[in-house]
């Protein structure tokens, strides 16, 4: 195999869901792109190139910390673990088992996510476990399950993107959030394909588009309905496909008769000619593709918005066709695997539902516990966090910086402080860890083994390349150690990744996300295996839906979803839309990237992007210190004035904590089904900051 010829250990980037292949060499680790890994073929963005910078970092935690007399102080592992066991026991005996919550992460390996879910159900026996993927993938997941019967981000390999002829990206800024993705888009364009980008901002992705639909925040479903209206009007739907492979189109057709272009223009602010052009680009291409991301999904109408765009792909007859279809672009590194193995409040491994008796029986037998002992569905992420101090009195946080990443951050800070007991496992003292009673130092990506599942549903291997610093344990070791202290050591006998994976394979067998046939050896030999893969002699499933949909009827389901306004709209007091998102050189809550000098040099401070006209009206110049306010709080930014944003909208990135925290501004409104918070729309106002106002809480 050619892989042997390349130097270093083959593993994957610790950041986004593209999971670019990396090679790590040397004792002082150096990172290069892995030219052998098919997804990125050696390409990396600045985050990947600098992935090693967090490993031997001076701020790395190398010893447990326990709060003594109000201050966090170093402690031995025994001391920390004893404290945890004692306090958990105390809280649970006083307030019941559900009073202890667990908060996981889409950054954890499949093995960790799986073991954490088992830990909650078996060792803590609490129903309250959820994870930060709730803030990321839950709307798309719900929509995909409803419409297509399964939730695998891309139901086809990324290479299909290069082969389509018209690609619509909805609320996806891949040029900044996963740059090597653009190579596929460029290849598609080079073959004459068209790129349509739906985004309130003219992002670098939108700048590369054939057509940019600059919609008003919160109007995604109206736009999608308008596009289907034009497809129907101009006979560009695939009637034969709709007839053979779908159900529910008549309702959608009747609904979209009320979304004629002039009306949709008025709702969305997208010129009607562009709505028509978008429909024509998609409808006249032989192969076309619709991909959604957080822009449309992180709204209180997120599920509906996504369903409305799935309708577009279904009406075009593309879902299940090679080189076309619908997909969602997963965000976090293991955002896909993280939502499959039981970190979700309502879920058991293998994407099983926790209220399904069959699923409970199977998983209980693999775990060797009584089926009735398994808890039922618990609170979703935001619901759990906003109940801290009341229902949930003690909380485990693993691999997540909830204080920065949760909407309405000021409220969440109060809630975290109201806890009886907080444990955080992380490798840096994040904003959340700083509030903890016990902090456990854990290993990082290059120091551990495991598997990740990338945005294509390709299960890949994270391989240990270097030793973790002394004093640090892997998350798997930590989970097993705590379980042992709680008296459940027998159920958590091994912290070896491969052995945990083998158990995961058994637990997922027969479920929708079936990993039973995937082995470490196969992953290495095949450069990843696509789930579902029920048997070792099964080739894996790069493409879904060719024959049928895994729904009850075998058909895909249209959903008639009307446009509904976001929870909060601009008014006289808060006249602007506020939308949030990512910038290229930072990642998520910034716990990792804000500690990398190469990255902070590029993106040193949180900016607030606004239109020149809006800036003039408020007397703001480029580079000014500004304060953005909403009904929930204020935050301070540096103005970035650019005509690439709508006049009625301000954009702020969410990678910073303290006074620069975007989530002090966002609203806690949730989608009724997915419980996704509305990160992407709320009402705000902006003004120049008073010159002597002081930034508080900013990390040094």
């Amino acid at each position, binding site marked *: 195999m050619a892989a042997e010829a390349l130097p270093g250990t083959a593993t994957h980037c610790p950041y986004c869901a593209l999971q670019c292949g990396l090679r790590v060499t040397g004792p002082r680790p150096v990172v290069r792109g892995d030219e052998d890994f098919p997804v990125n073929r050696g390409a990396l963005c600045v985050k990947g190139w600098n992935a090693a910078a967090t490993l031997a970092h001076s701020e790395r935690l190398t010893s447990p910390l326990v709060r003594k007399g109000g201050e966090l102080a170093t402690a031995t592992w025994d001391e920390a673990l004893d404290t945890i066991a004692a306090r958990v026991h105390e809280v649970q005996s006083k307030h019941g088992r559900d009073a202890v919550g667990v908060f996981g992460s889409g950054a954890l390996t499949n093995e960790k996510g799986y073991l954490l879910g088992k830990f909650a159900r078996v060792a803590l026996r609490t129903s309250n476990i959820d994870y930060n993927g709730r803030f990321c993938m839950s709307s798309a997941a719900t929509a995909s399950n409803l419409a297509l019967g399964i939730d695998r981000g891309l139901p086809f390999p990324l290479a299909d993107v290069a082969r389509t002829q018209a690609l619509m990206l909805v609320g996806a800024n891949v040029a900044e959030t996963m740059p090597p993705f653009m190579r596929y888009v460029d290849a598609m364009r080079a073959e004459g394909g068209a790129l349509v980008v739906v985004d309130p901002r003219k992002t670098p992705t939108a700048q590369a588009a054939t057509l940019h639909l600059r919609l008003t925040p919160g109007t995604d479903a109206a736009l999608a309905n308008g596009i289907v209206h034009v497809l129907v009007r101009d006979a560009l739907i695939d009637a034969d496909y709709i007839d053979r492979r779908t159900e529910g189109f008549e309702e959608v057709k009747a609904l979209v008769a009320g979304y004629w272009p002039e*009306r949709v223009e008025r709702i969305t602010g997208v010129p009607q000619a562009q709505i028509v052009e978008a429909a024509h680009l998609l409808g006249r291409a032989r192969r076309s593709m619709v991909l959604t991301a957080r822009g449309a999904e992180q709204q209180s109408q997120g599920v509906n918005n996504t369903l409305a765009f799935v309708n577009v792909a279904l009406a075009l007859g593309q879902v299940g066709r090679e080189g076309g279809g619908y997909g969602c672009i997963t965000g976090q590194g293991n955002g896909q695997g993280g939502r499959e193995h039981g970190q979700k409040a309502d879920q058991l491994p293998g994407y099983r539902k926790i209220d399904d008796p069959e699923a409970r029986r199977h998983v209980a037998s693999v775990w060797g516990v009584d089926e009735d002992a398994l808890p039922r569905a618990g609170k979703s992420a935001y619901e759990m966090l906003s109940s801290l101090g009341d229902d949930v009195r003690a909380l485990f946080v693993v691999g997540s910086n909830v204080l920065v990443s949760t909407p309405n951050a000021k409220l969440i800070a109060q809630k975290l402080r109201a806890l009886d007991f907080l444990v955080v496992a992380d490798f840096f003292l994040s904003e959340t860890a700083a509030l903890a009673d016990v902090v456990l130092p854990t290993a990082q990506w290059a120091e551990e083994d495991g598997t990740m599942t990338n945005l294509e549903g390709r299960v890949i291997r994270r391989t240990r390349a270097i030793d973790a610093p002394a004093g640090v344990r892997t998350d798997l070791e930590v989970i097993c150690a705590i379980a042992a202290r709680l008296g459940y050591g027998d159920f958590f006998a091994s912290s070896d990744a491969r052995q945990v994976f083998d158990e995961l394979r058994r637990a997922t067998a027969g479920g929708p996300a079936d990993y039973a046939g995937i082995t470490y050896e196969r992953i290495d030999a095949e450069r990843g295996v696509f789930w579902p893969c029920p048997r070792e002699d099964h080739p894996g499933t790069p493409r879904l839906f060719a024959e049928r949909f895994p729904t009850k009827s075998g058909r895909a389901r249209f959903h008639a979803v009307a446009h509904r306004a976001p929870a909060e709209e601009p008014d006289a007091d808060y006249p602007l839309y506020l939308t949030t998102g990512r910038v290229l050189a930072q990642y998520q809550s910034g716990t990792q990237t804000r500690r990398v000098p190469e990255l902070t040099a590029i993106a040193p401070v949180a900016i607030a992007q606004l239109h020149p006209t809006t800036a003039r*009206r408020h007397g703001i110049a480029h580079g000014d210190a500004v304060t953005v306010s909403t009904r929930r709080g204020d935050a301070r930014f540096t103005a970035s004035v650019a005509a690439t944003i709508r006049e009625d909208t301000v954009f702020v990135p969410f990678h910073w904590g303290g006074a620069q925290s975007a989530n002090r501004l966002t609203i806690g409104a949730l989608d009724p089904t997915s419980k996704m918070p509305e990160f992407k729309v709320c009402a705000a106002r902006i003004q120049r900051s008073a010159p002597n106002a002081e930034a508080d809480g900013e990390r040094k």
Partner: protein
Amino acid sequence: MKKERLVVVGNGMAGARLVEEVLARGGRDRFDIVMFGDEPYGNYNRILLSNVLAGAHDAKDIFLNPLAWYEQNGITLHTNARVHGIDRRAKVVHAADDAILEGYDHLVIATGSNAFVPPLERAYVDEGKFREGVFVFRTLDDTNAILDYASKVKSAAVLGGGLLGLEAARGLLRLGLEVHVVHLMKHLMEVQLDRMAGLILRRSMEQMGLRVHLEKVTAGVIGEPNVQGLLFADGSTLDCEMLVVSAGIRPNAQLAIDAGLEVERGIVVGDDMRTSDDAIFAVGECAQHRGKTYGLVAPLWDQVRVLAERLTMTKPDATYTGSQVSTKLKVMGVDLAVMGARDADGDDEEVVYSEPSRGVYKKLVVRNGKLAGAILLGDATMAPNLLQAFDRGRDLPADRSELLFALSSEASGASVLDMPDDAQICNCNGVTKGRIVQAVRGGCRSLKVLCDSTRAGTGCGTCKKDVQAILELVAGDTVKEDPSVHHYVPGVPLAKPELVRAIRERGLRSVSSVFAALAGGVEDAPSKPGLASLLKTIWGKDYDDERDARFINDRVHANIQKDGTFSVIPRIYGGVTTAAELRRIADVAEKHHARMVKITGGQRIDLLGIPKERLPEVWRDLGMPSGHAYAKSFRTCKTCVGSEFCRWGVGDSTGLGIEIEKRFQGLESPHKMKLATAGCPRNCSEATTKDVGAVAIEGGKWEVYVGGAAGSRVRKGDVLCVVDSHDDVLKYFGRFMQYYRENAKYLERTYDFVERTGIEKVKRVLVDDEDGICARLDAAVQEAVDAYVDPWREADWPATQNQFAESLAPAADDLVPLRRASGDG
């Protein structure tokens, strides 16, 4: 809880929408809902009737609520049932001549409006029955009747130059009728437009073919029994075979009047949408609120939302305080958006931009710093912005021009060379121009080393060309090319001369055998087309053709278009054709529904919009050889008329061009080759800016030019030599093309190749035979010419079973695309 009875009279845009809104607020648990509709259908979108009339929308696709919807939602719908009375004391409505009685707790009147028909002599044959050929335009039945009648006549008049009248007129025009618009007022759409806008709109409509008659009072209809014309009050007449009356609407309030409710122009309602009877509400076009009636859908929907909130008690104190109106004219080809006030009033500020020659007129009415009204005619690109400013009462920018014109500041367009040092070149890796410059100064002298060192271009890859430009700027002549830059294709680590030698020595005749022998067996998809081209050049007919090595264009011998269809260009030697050939091309274009037939820049005819699976049949029907307009090969030889006809011609450029094209057609090359011959130095066929060109000069001589370009860059070709005969032109053309084929990098055009090699060197090799290879070059090109086979013969002998099948054959999943040179035009 016992359910209350909610009765809705009217199943149109307001009535049905009200019920939807009530249901969306849990109304099904609260009410038994009964609806009455005049028409036999469910509810359809009346807004789209002008689309139906214009043939743009199928009538069956405009239904918002099919009959099944009522049933699914437990609604009793009486279709075809006219309500003729309300017994307010007993709270019962009477319908269908008392055949239907329905009691109510809450009654909603949503009877909409009727078409207003001015008094016209002889318009009716009976009480309420129009003469044949006279129509109103309100309902789906009206629309179908108009469509049906219009198919039998040749001319029509529309009475009324308002919004709906113009949309109707445009629809009739599309049906092929001669259409007149007769309007009472001094300009069109006077309700929404000021005089200037009306004048410009008139001209735009006339340019479309409508005939507009203003300030005409129509007195009556001429013709017996059918309409034959109109008679005006001034005694003049107009011939027309049908009349569509679209002179406005009148609220349909008769039911309310009969029931003794307060009615002025419409049924009077308060902010709670209640009539003078507490149990009866009115919404939509039949209602009059604060003295206003509305004829547009948005206000109607605002009203029903308020009423639904009150009825369901979800917001029992909701109030309706009036709507701001805006509308757009749905006429293809004329952009018109209007909103709010038509003219300034008192202290209002009026901002006007007028450009009648382009049909553009923009006007804003600004009141207290907010938008009170706007007219956008001819250019509605800013309409969404203005609409939102208007709808939301946004503060306007001090510089009002920002509202009228799109900001151009988005376009950067600045050359990378002019950018400041702190400009970011590589976004993925945050690399500034300054850092790249520094790296070059620090010794990075090749693109690969520079990219590796700075990491620019290692993410999405888009900025590589900018990095190269900076490298060249800073390093100047000291740019060192790294070895891989010289590789003919990225997947095989050899420069072209070594690669050619290895292929010849080892007898490698297929792309896969090259990978096997020279690249360790690793196939690199992006390298395949380049290798295929080279192998064809080297081996001619002995080349072992593997289809998967080709671009889609080369697989199916046609040029893929952005919508996935193909363009077909048959060869027309020297641009000279015959009437019979043209006729045949025309027949083929019609038979296969070519979406566009275009004369190309290369003097031939392009049939666009052909689906892949039809290609073989198109070629068969044409019976002409391929023009190779899709390939990296000899394309065409453009000619001027030459000495045979032209008064200035000194050489037979047409004859020469035909000879050239017949000889070199289909010759594969690293990139496309476009040729031309000119009959005199006036150069009408632009031969001096072609890849290879010949220009006739006095004395029967020809100048041979090579390396010209008139594409994304323009370069005058270099004179290779001056010769005396057609044969010599052919000889030097062939020799140069073979030299280029053998030595250019894949996708290197002749102008880059000539510049890279240097014209003096090219002359020494090809004219002075410095390297002693001229004889071999001549023989090689002859061999290639002999190997020519018209690829369109694959129409009858497909190379693979699904060569022209609709879907792509499965490709390698893990193919990671590299940035390629763009396709050829």
